[in-house]
């Protein structure tokens, strides 16, 4: 990016960018433009930073390569990953690189009441039901020529699954209360944090729909599996805060170590929340490990002035959050016990069978570097098959 004023127009602030545009360069220019707007909200900044695929870990590089390959095709893509890993970011990137001219539309199938989902997706005609005062265009029509992301597809009710399957087969939708099929040219991406194979086994998800959607599967790794990226993500978020909100904080090496050691059950979204929280409580200076919120800060260490003891609330259900904490505790115990399950069970004060069951449920392996004969590697028949 070059900033200059021309001889003819010495007052003008001109940025010069070369085609093809680099997203980072364009982002830098837009950042400067928006910096003039005091009303621009901090959260928007962080959201945009997190809306980029940040990270150079092997798994993120693999995701980028996969996106480049799948984007130009019209194949349906199933994006799987835990909550907060950035499945929608991946979907947006697929759309951006696809060259499709229409809109990108994201629908959270789990957030819309069952009765409204059909109307939301396919629209309705006037008088189709009691509250249908006028015609409404559905999200599929809005995404015509573009891409639709069906997020949390595992939560879609069975009745809608049948209708969606028909749309995928016939490439036509029918508004609720309508009789005319409307052709739509929509690329369909689906995302879920759930194990759809399990749902199929329990007959909660249609197998034929799964295979229609799962033409190309993409797995977004949890943050704990790409810990090399944590420092880069933190730097990115802090840099945004510094540039645009004069929040100038840095982290001590110990604080950064705590962040990289933490398992992040809420993934990147949780990390964004933590950085946001730190920037509110501390606008300048150095953040030490003691300044970090629980559960990243070890129990018993002091909190920031005015901070109430709390856990980070992320966009997950209580059940998911508790599962995340449980996973984190089990991993910690296994690390401390060098992978010896019986010792880890003692640390957690649960029975060995209970721990093995939980490890199997959460697919947690014992530590691969575990040493010693009683280390839980291949010698223990009770352990998950991955061990």
């Amino acid at each position, binding site marked *: 990016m070059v900033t200059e004023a021309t001889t003819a127009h010495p*007052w*003008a602030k001109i940025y*010069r960018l070369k*085609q093809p*545009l680099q997203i980072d360069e364009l982002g830098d220019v837009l950042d400067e*433009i928006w910096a003039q707007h005091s*009303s621009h909200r901090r959260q928007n900044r962080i959201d*945009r930073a997190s809306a980029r695929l940040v990270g150079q870990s092997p798994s993120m590089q693999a995701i980028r390569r996969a996106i480049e390959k799948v984007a130009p095709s019209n194949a349906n893509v199933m994006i799987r990953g835990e909550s907060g890993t950035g499945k929608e970011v991946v979907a*947006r990137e697929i759309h951006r690189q696809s060259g499709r001219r229409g809109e990108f539309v994201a629908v959270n199938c789990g957030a819309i009441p069952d009765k409204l989902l059909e109307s939301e997706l396919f629209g309705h005609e006037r008088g189709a039901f009691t509250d249908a005062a006028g015609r409404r265009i559905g999200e599929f029509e809005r995404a015509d020529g573009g891409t639709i992301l069906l997020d949390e597809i595992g939560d879609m009710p069975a009745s809608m699954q049948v209708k969606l399957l028909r749309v995928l087969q016939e490439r036509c939708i029918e508004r609720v209360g309508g009789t005319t099929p409307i052709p739509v040219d929509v690329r369909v991406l689906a995302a879920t944090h759930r194990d759809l194979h399990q749902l199929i086994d329990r007959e909660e998800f249609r197998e034929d729909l799964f295979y229609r959607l799962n033409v190309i599967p993409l797995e977004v790794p949890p943050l704990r599996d790409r810990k090399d990226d944590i420092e880069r993500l933190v730097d990115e978020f802090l840099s945004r805060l510094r540039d645009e909100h004069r929040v100038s904080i840095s982290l001590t090496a110990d604080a950064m170590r705590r962040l990289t050691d933490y398992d992040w059950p809420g993934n990147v979204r949780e990390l964004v929340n933590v950085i946001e929280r730190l920037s509110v409580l501390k606008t300048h200076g150095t953040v030490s490990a003691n300044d970090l919120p629980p559960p990243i800060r070890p129990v018993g260490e002091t909190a920031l002035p005015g901070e109430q003891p709390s856990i980070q609330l992320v966009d997950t259900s209580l059940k998911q959050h508790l599962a995340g904490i449980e996973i984190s505790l089990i991993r910690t115990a296994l690390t401390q016990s060098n992978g010896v399950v019986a010792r880890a069970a003692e640390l957690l004060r649960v029975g060995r069978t209970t721990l093995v069951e939980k490890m199997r449920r959460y697919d947690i392996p014992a530590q691969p570097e575990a040493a010693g004969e009683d280390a839980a590697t291949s010698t223990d028949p009770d352990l998950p098959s991955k061990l």
Partner: protein
Amino acid sequence: MGETLSTADRVILVIDERTDRASALKEMIEFMDAPEVRVTNPSEWRVSLGAQRPAAIFLTETISESHADTIVSELGEIDPNIPIVMLSDDGD
């Protein structure tokens, strides 16, 4: 200048001779969280803006130097602080 702009004023104007190319650019800028991006051509850009002050103007590589010069001059009359982003082909 010096006034704080409202959200309604955060319009980015893309001036281009070829709308197909501009649509891709529009999409890219929107992806970067811009609330409103309008595409127009060199002869209609003032009409397209109406009374609004744009947050920035993008001039694509399809705009000739003389057109660009005119637009920059006219823009200075509206507000000399409006940033201008000029796109050029790689190697220019």
